[in-house]
């Protein structure tokens, strides 16, 4: 081999490497956008998605060959693109999409995660599911159906409403089947005006309207030659440029729910979790909730080395300056920043997702951040009619109902309104017996503590109740193995106008007692336990926390005696 050809070969290799690095740089710098589609069976949603995947060259040849060879073709075209996304057998047989399906594709600019959700009325729960993580919602509107009905179809209104309820930052209406209305600008303008008015009424901040034909491929990926009156972006262009809900600014309040404690040896104790909001840096002053203890962040520990800062949505481990007690379900927040709301009572918008109805007065498990506690439904304020958006009273909720509901939880919840922060304001409802996920809720605000009944009773100020109320910190009573007495004590304290709860729920293992008690202290609620045994170290811890207000079995009679009630007089 001559030296010149060797040199040329090397040059070529360099060029190849350079080209590859450019490519990789591009790919590694890609942003990620999550979006969701809503539309009904006839709106051509599957065809639209098939078109997006096909025209962005995201379909593999063998997959394309498999749908070409399929026995089913409902499209009227040569290839039924809707088959690309209709996954399960049952769906293909019935010709409907029955569950959320996730699709992935990418362009030079972005990686996309698409939550493809069915738009049929009975599947509101799936739409809410797909919407819960989306940055953008595509609402599909059938232009021909609009032309026939003279107004937006109920399903389009419903889809837009759910997008607004789940607070999807951007909502784009894709006006489909323009080919069937001769690509007419006036029809598009009419639909566009009606959609914009609806979006404004629902308080959606960012909207767009795009005329498309999924079947013919107009304005999905390729710019249409048949609608020159339209100057806006194609659907893909819109998806590539919609502003992302970027990492929240550093000056926003820091939120860090603890997922687990990492303690590999005696020297290291770290708190693993995800930064849900704001930013954390070493040296930053943080407050632990519910204890209220303040300390500083020592290090942000990761497998790849210590970080100078971490923000949403990074999963990190924090090492703190002081040895403070903190465990899963608790939270670190910025000390000098706005604290989350803390309350046992709150109101939330609920999407009910189960055949078994929600009934006022029922108790459910709620999972909020990394915490699972009990909460009962105090009241269903109103049910929302998702056609007319009108409110009506309702004693219970059926599957796919949406309502504003008042909850009363067994322990105080630390949250931000869902409108401010999805992660800090979202919760799911779980059946305590079957463990089914029953619904989802988005917290609006906290409510005044306590039931009406307790408020009325508190007018009756007995001396003992006053003394108990005045006590700081609040009492912890351990009536060892005396379940009956414990319940009686709780009832008497309640009758005296003081909140009190049993902490013997199986959701509160011994190890979590200090945390539960601390939360109750903060909410000024007396804690009562009838556990036969509690680990001695934990008893010590509890005794210290309760200061002079820790009562055990031997003190039981005395405790009961200090809380005279009407019942006692009757005896």
């Amino acid at each position, binding site marked *: 081999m001559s030296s010149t050809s060797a040199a040329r070969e090397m040059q070529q290799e360099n060029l190849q490497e350079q080209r*590859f690095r450019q*490519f*990789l*740089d591009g*790919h*590694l*710098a890609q*942003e*990620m956008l999550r979006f969701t589609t809503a539309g009904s069976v006839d709106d051509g949603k599957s065809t639209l998605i098939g078109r997006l995947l096909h025209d962005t060259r995201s379909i*593999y*040849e*063998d997959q394309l060959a498999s749908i070409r060879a*399929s026995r089913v073709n409902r499209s009227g075209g040569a290839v039924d693109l809707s088959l690309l996304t209709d*996954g*399960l*057998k*049952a769906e*293909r047989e019935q010709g409907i999409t*029955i*569950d*959320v*399906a*996730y*699709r*992935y594709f990418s362009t030079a600019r*972005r*990686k996309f*995660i698409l939550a493809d959700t069915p738009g049929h009325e009975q599947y509101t729960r*799936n739409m*809410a*599911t797909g919407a819960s*993580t989306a940055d953008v919602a595509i609402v599909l509107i059938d232009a021909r159906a609009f032309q026939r009905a003279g107004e937006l179809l109920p399903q389009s209104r419903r889809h837009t409403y759910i997008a607004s309820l789940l607070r999807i930052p951007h909502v784009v209406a894709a006006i489909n089947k323009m080919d069937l209305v001769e690509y007419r600008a006036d029809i598009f303008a009419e639909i566009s005006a009606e959609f914009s008015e609806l979006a404004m009424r629902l308080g959606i901040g960012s909207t767009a309207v795009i005329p498309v034909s999924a079947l013919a491929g107009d304005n999905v990926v390729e710019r249409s030659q048949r609608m020159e009156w339209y100057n806006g972006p194609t659907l893909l262009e819109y998806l590539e440029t919609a502003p992302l809900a970027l990492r929240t600014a550093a000056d926003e309040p820091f939120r860090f729910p603890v*997922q*687990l404690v*990492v*303690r590999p040896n005696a020297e*290291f104790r*770290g708190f*693993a979790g*995800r930064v849900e909001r704001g930013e954390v840096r070493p040296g930053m002053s943080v407050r632990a909730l519910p204890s209220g203890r303040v300390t500083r962040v020592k290090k942000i*520990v*990761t*497998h*790849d080395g210590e970080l100078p800062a971490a923000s949403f*949505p990074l*999963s990190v*481990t924090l090492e703190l300056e002081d040895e403070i007690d903190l465990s899963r379900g608790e939270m670190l927040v910025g000390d000098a920043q706005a604290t989350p709301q803390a309350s046992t009572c709150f109101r939330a918008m609920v999407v009910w*997702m189960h055949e078994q109805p929600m009934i006022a007065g029922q108790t459910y498990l709620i*999972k909020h951040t*990394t915490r699972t506690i009990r909460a009962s439904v105090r009241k269903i304020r109103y049910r929302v009619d998702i056609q007319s958006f009108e409110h009506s009273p309702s004693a219970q909720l059926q599957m796919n109902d949406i309502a504003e509901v008042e909850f009363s939880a067994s322990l105080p919840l630390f949250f931000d309104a869902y409108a401010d922060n*999805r*992660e800090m304001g*979202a*919760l*799911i409802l*779980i059946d305590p017996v079957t*463990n*089914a*996920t029953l619904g*989802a809720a988005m917290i609006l605000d906290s409510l005044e503590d306590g039931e009406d009944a307790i408020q009325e009773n508190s007018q009756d100020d007995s001396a003992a109740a006053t003394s108990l109320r005045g006590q700081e910190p609040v009492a912890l009573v351990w009536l060892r193995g005396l379940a009956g007495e414990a319940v009686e004590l709780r009832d008497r304290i309640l009758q005296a106008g003081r909140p009190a709860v049993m902490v013997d729920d199986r959701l509160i293992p011994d190890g979590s007692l200090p945390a539960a008690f601390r939360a109750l202290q903060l909410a000024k609620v007396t804690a009562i336990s009838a556990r036969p045994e509690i680990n001695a170290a934990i008893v010590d811890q509890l005794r210290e926390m309760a200061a002079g207000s820790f009562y055990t079995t031997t003190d039981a009679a005395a405790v009961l005696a200090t809380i005279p009630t009407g019942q006692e007089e009757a005896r």
Partner: protein
Amino acid sequence: MVTETVVGEEIAKQLYQKRLNHLQALEAESLYILREAVAEFARPVMLYSIGKDSSVMLRLAQKAFYPGPIPFPLLHVDTGYKFPEMIRFRDEYTREIGAELIVHRNEAAIAEGASPWKLGTQNCCAALKTRSLLDALEEGGFDAAFGGARRDEEKSRAKERVYSFRDAAGQWDPKNQRPELWSLYNSRLRKGESIRVFPLSNWTELDIWLYLYAEQIPIVPLYYAEEREAVIRGSMITLVHPGMRLLPGEKPRKMMLRMRSLGCMPCTGAIRSEAETLPQIIEELIGFRRSEREGRAIDHDEEGSMELKKREGYF
């Protein structure tokens, strides 16, 4: 050492500094999922298939609990038909990172000579993979099992939850899955029920390769192209392997080949490729217009075949 098989370290280091955005977002999400499951389940286990996805999942597990060790064992369901290179890699690599490894085989079925040519691919998978997996989970008393499945692999997987609920018989009912909103996963179980947890749900094949490269994660050498002996059967290229029965008239030939996904020797096809390094594989992948499961005989048995397998308890 296994880690030396990785190439392009210098480039990877530079890229690592810039690594942000989608890979970082995916990694953060996966770490969150791994931690949630470890915090909430009594006895989790990680299904370790030795493939590229398992390699990524294992690295994520190292990261999620750092500086602590991986707080659960790895489980490999060995059919007895895995490539010798896979077994060697499995043993070396798990030892190197100090992970606890459980290997489970359906010895009864293996002794009876279960094979794809005797039982057909469906029944062979049912005995050596599905049955074996369910037995191993039951024996170990595991209530949660991490799997490396991705939603982009196959149609029926596109609808899979991150937490996939299985009844007491280990079966998957697509119509009876729990709704999954935000990142609030419902981990509550009754006795005998279990959950398959998929931390890589939102990763694509390309994401996996990019991450392997950026993180310099070692993989089984079968993924790299090499001159290998093989026969062409229908649309599948089968590597010559121990215990292989050649069909009448079949003559093995040497070809430049690599595996795009790893499975059992008789049922996993190789592809023609010149890609000898990770960058070359990635470059090749961009040009690919065929899906990675195409080389898997089991997916093509009949329409919707993966869905059927999943209902029975297959991953």
